[in-house]
């Protein structure tokens, strides 16, 4: 994981998953995190570990005043700083030394996602409120870097867009553009047609823009008239034991033309596959992902030079 000094903002939950009713346990690599909303409705994040006896705080509850209470001994912490506020048997004692606190993390919320930065002093990104109506959470038993490589090399192994067949042919190879890794893949509607290698034209393409640090990716499906058919924001987060937690939000385009595109308005247009065909994955030839590795190393080298200068 990135060191704290350059710690990125990770999209760790959907806004509606974080409530003032029940704490939510998530993790970032091996770092367990508990999320909840305080009395003001602000999302809070602490290390999911009570500093008293190391029990997960997520097994506790949220009190009426917005503090999180450990389920083991009832120690209560406030979310902003993680400071200990109350011990049940010591209710007369309202002040505790500053060291009595749980590890707090920075939290920000935008576009219907909750973001966490392991650096509690990190500056929050500019807020944005364009919450797309479709949303989902998936857990995949594949490391985040492998999951992203599969998304580059054969998206059909890890995601499903209703009625869409991903081809191996690209409109543009992976490149760096304004700090994002961008590529565009040709796609077909999944109906009776000539095989993709024999098609002269492709009716749709999938534009992919990925943040190199977190892997957060925007997918835009467009037709050959440049109408946006579907937009999805994917946030694959490395979790414990090599699992990848993927939160996503999406919305169909406004100008849906044709039978297949209009189907996006009904049911689920997009899903992340929780079960991956391991046989196909094993033999999947790296192609785009190789460019990705090269681009990443070039970015890292450029950063080193910039720091040295």
């Amino acid at each position, binding site marked *: 994981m990135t060191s704290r000094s350059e710690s990125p903002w990770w999209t760790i939950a959907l806004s509606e998953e974080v409530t003032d009713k029940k704490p939510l346990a998530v993790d970032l690599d091996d770092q367990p995190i508990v999320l909840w909303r305080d009395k003001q409705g602000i999302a809070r994040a602490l290390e999911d*570990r009570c*500093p*008293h*006896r*190391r*029990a*997960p705080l997520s*097994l506790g509850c949220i009190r009426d005043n917005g503090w999180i209470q450990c*389920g*083991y*001994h*009832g120690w209560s912490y406030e979310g902003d700083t993680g400071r*200990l506020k109350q*011990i*049940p*048997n*010591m209710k007369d004692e309202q002040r*505790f*030394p500053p*060291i*009595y606190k749980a590890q707090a993390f920075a939290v920000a919320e935008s576009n219907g996602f909750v973001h966490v930065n392991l650096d509690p002093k990190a500056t929050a990104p500019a807020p944005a409120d364009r919450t797309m109506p479709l949303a989902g959470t998936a857990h995949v038993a594949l490391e985040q870097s492998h999951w992203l490589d599969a998304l580059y090399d054969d998206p059909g192994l890890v995601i499903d867009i209703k009625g869409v067949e991903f081809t191996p042919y690209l409109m543009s190879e992976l490149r760096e553009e304004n700090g994002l890794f961008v590529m565009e893949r040709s796609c077909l509607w999944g109906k009776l047609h000539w095989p993709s290698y024999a098609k002269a034209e492709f009716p749709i393409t999938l534009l992919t823009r990925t943040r190199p640090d977190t892997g957060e990716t925007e997918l835009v499906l467009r037709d050959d008239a440049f109408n946006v058919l579907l937009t999805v924001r994917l946030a694959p987060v490395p979790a414990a034991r090599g699992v990848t937690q993927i939160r996503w939000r999406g919305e169909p385009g406004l100008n849906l033309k044709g039978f297949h595109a209009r189907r996006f308005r009904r049911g689920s247009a997009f899903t992340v596959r929780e079960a991956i065909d391991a046989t196909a994955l094993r033999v999947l030839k790296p192609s785009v992902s190789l460019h990705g590795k090269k681009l990443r190393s070039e970015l890292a080298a450029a950063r080193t030079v910039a720091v040295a200068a």
Partner: protein
Amino acid sequence: MLEVADSPVTTDHGGNEPARVTGNAMNAVNNWVPHDIVMRDTWFPIAHAVDIGKRPVRRSIYSHPYFLWREDGKIVASEFHPNEARTREKSPYSDARGRYPVMEHYGVVWGWFGNPEAADPAHLPSLPFLPPNGGLPGYMTSTIRFDCSAPISLENLIDLTHADFLHADVVGDEKSDSETVETFYDSETVTMVRTCINKSVAPIMKFFSGIRQPTQNVRQVIRIYLRSHCAIAYGRFTPGDDVPLFHPCTPETRDRTRMEMVMNTSNAGFMFRHIMPKAGYKVSRQDSSMTSPQSPRYMLPTTRKDLHSKFDQAGQRYRLQMMDLVTRQAAGDFAYRDNVSADCSDIIGLRKELFRF
């Protein structure tokens, strides 16, 4: 203010032990890696005596196999199953025939773990509320397992403030007019006495023992025999009943615990006598919901210190005493400096008139 690891505590025998150096004491409390603790030369309770017949049953202590059966009515503990083809060397903890020292007392089968030649009934913990020859009805006994290390389970027991919170629906909440906690210890035991005046009545007593008053006075004692990982939990409730519990935490492996529980409710009314021992099934699941995720977090050393409150004094003392024994054993000293089989009735405040055998 809250760090109380060095608060003065007294010993069972009133001895004047040298004061601990602060730095060392704090290290012992915070360098707490219970997963690494392996106690030797001690009796571990491994089965209820009534569960052992002619057919061998398997138990384990720190992953060492203990096969138990009866030969001419006498308990045998062997490292090998009678039908087992021997493909492994015997351990140094059994005799030439591969048999461990074993004894039957208090209705429990005790297996010796350590040097077989050092096995001595004099090292058996005193449990004065249990009939020496057993014979309590089956509903007062049960076997409960915890997927955490045994020292974590014992620490959970001696930490009474969690009971007011985690087990409030069984034993009542933390509200009381006054509360005092005293801790006594020697080289083999730690005893905590908690006295509460006008504490909220335990719901289980309200429902099954007919207590109508809103509050009751409570004297709770936890006495831990460090080496054998056994504990006494004795509650005296006024109004209410006396509830003495034998709560062993036998380390089947370094992070799995088996409890051959015995609760002597002979003196309680019919309903409470039958229901209270069953509360262990509920309480143990509540404990396990915390100790199970807690246990792996204590498996490796960390530089991060646990926080403590003044109510953790007994738990801290337990950690210190346990680590003292660990240090002694690591240096090859397995001698008993204090007598664990001496009658502890007075130490735990047992109302002897209720428990005559």
